[in-house]
């Protein structure tokens, strides 16, 4: 259990893992996540389940700090000390008609199961994939059953130059959609939600709040949805992006910035250059 079966580098600092865990593989639904603790003094970090296959499940991890650096250093054969899950409410998958799904950065991984499930439920799905530049796209062949796939890069190295929400805005001028999803960095989800709001389109976003337990027991992941307090881990992680208080969400994400920096510095002092990223 919890053994890394396969590992693949997708881009600088972005790694794919297949991990053995029958229970999670059997039970995971699109939109759900797990909590990892890589070792005994490790912290609990939430990661989305980005696919399942028999007795294993897949995650795609972006190295941003100590815990994810450490995780990305692990090799096939290594074991993750603890994986708790699946957690969170699954995405609301059903027949809507025409659906637009936006994935940005590592969010591309998160939307794969959602897009596939939406297609299986008979929806026409258009996808916008956004990243910093061409080399940060991955697993794009897994979107081949989508109606259309649009690419956007910050630097214009592939597809349209610009941001995901700009592409979304353009598409909404030409086409009608019944519902949308946007998953990626907070700023991207915020901007997409504003576009959706303007167009009266319901949009699901997946909030990557800072979590501890992931089971509704601490309230650390609380967010304001339509001015009401919700716990991301048990009430979400998906919420209607038009109702999210983005400013408070993003401020809360920065809570431990100094501590995170310190932890990473200390770690790099110990292990040297993170050549494995």
């Amino acid at each position, binding site marked *: 259990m919890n053994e890394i079966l396969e590992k693949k580098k997708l881009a600088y600092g972005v790694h794919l893992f297949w991990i053995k865990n029958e229970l999670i593989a059997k039970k995971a639904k699109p939109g759900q996540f797990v909590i990892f603790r890589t070792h005994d003094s490790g912290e609990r970090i939430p990661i989305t389940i980005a696919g399942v296959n028999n007795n294993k499940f897949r995650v795609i991890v972006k190295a941003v700090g100590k815990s994810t650096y450490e995780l990305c250093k692990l090799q096939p054969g290594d074991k993750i000390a603890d994986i*708790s899950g699946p957690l969170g409410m699954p995405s609301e998958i059903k027949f809507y008609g025409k659906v637009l799904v936006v994935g940005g950065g590592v969010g591309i991984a998160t939307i794969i199961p959602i897009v596939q499930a939406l297609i299986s439920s008979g929806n026409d799905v258009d996808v916008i994939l956004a990243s910093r530049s061409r080399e940060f796209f991955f697993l794009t062949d897994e979107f081949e059953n989508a109606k259309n796939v649009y690419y956007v890069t910050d630097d214009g190295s592939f597809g349209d130059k610009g941001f995901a929400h700009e592409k979304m805005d353009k598409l909404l001028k030409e086409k009608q959609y019944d519902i949308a999803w946007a998953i990626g960095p907070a700023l991207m989800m915020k901007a997409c939600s504003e576009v959706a709001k303007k167009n009266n389109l319901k949009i699901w976003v997946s909030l990557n709040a800072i979590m501890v337990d992931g*089971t509704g027991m601490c309230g650390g992941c609380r967010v304001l949805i339509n001015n009401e307090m919700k716990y991301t881990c048990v009430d979400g992680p998906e919420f209607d992006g038009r109702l999210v208080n983005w400013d408070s969400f993003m*401020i809360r994400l*920065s809570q431990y910035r100094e501590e995170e920096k310190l932890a990473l510095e200390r770690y790099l002092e110990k292990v040297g250059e993170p050549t494995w990223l």
Partner: protein
Amino acid sequence: MAVKDRIPPVERKPEERAKDFEEVSLGYTEELAILEAKRCLQCKVPTCVSGCPVGIDIPGFIKEISKRNFEKSYRILKSYNSLPAVCGRVCPQEVQCEGVCVLNKAGKPISIGNLERFVADWAMQNNLEDKITIERKINKKIAVIGSGPAGLTNAAEMAKRGYVVDLYEVFHTPGGVLVYGIPEFRLPKAIVNKEVAFLEKLGVNIKLDIPVGFAVHPMELLETYDAIFIGVGAGTPKFMGIDGTELNGVYSANEFLTRINLMKAYKFPEADTPVKFAKNVVVIGGGNTAMDAARSALRLGANVTVVYRRSKVEMPARKAEIEHAKEEGIKFQTLTQPVRYIGNNGRLVAIECIKMKLGEPDSSGRRRPIPIEGSNFVIKADMAIEAIGTQANKLLLSQFEGLELNKWGYIKADDYGKTSLPKVFAGGDIVTGSATVILAMGAGKKAANAMEKFLY
């Protein structure tokens, strides 16, 4: 007859203990325990037993201490209570056994809790093997959900009776509040681990990291197991909901304590989980949780004030812990209620409070706090910790269709733990709302009796 004063346990000095998370009370030495045990009158009709929720033979185990038969004393104790080292430390004895000891009439009651703890610790230090007698193997399977005191007790009881027991826990460590709520300085985690290891010896299959409801559906449990015990606690924190609750620096006590106790954030960066090291901490509430949070914050180097809306006499926390908190230098601001958090760039900087006065008694029998208009004032604070109570843990209940809940959202169960579903039993905080360790254990045990009857 003159009653000798009770023997105080050995405690570490406030100035020393306030700097670390090691245990405050060192308990009794053998000699002190014997002296205290000799004070017991060995009543023919011992009132103390009626005050103990699991009916421990109190004079019985105390008598053996006075005769230096520590092992025998331990056997008596353990036959009633599977977590004596825990209960001896955290039970509110002043309102239970000690509260009804006859010696209250003439002086100070017997220190039953300290004696219980002494015997349990003695047994651990002397590596006393627990005698495991499993009556006979019964080919029936029990699922226990949640490894807090209720679940641990139910699992142990069912295993002793010969059933096959699977214990499910969503966290990476078993123990419930004993590991994530109550701090090391009151209840060392090594002790909880030892007591949990006893379950493994009984053959209980402990399955960690499994959120029941998500990883295992209640329907599957109903199909696979002959009976189910739910002991998932009341772990969801409540917030007052005043303006500014979303500010950085505002914590629920559960989050703060989970970071400290379970994740060892006080060792950051040796442990990976961070916690803020604040200068001025305000803890809101007057229960055990508030005391634990306040004393933990103090140990991280903060200047700590407890803000409570009633007066000191109404505080529900254990008296001993309020005393400990005071000795360690925690300030108390009673008859005060926060009304607004004040932030700067998203970080908490101060709390606006209002003064209160006490009115008529409310349904709980305590005098109701009423705000005094115009008495608002501001306290400087870079961290606020709300310890105003918890509610039912939603993780499982949202998935358990057909399970009846009461109007507060807790599981409806009778005195024997029977719920609205035939195979399903429940006990502990998820039935009663936040209560005590021993009541959760008592509920786990009662439900075991009912489950056995049901399965027979």
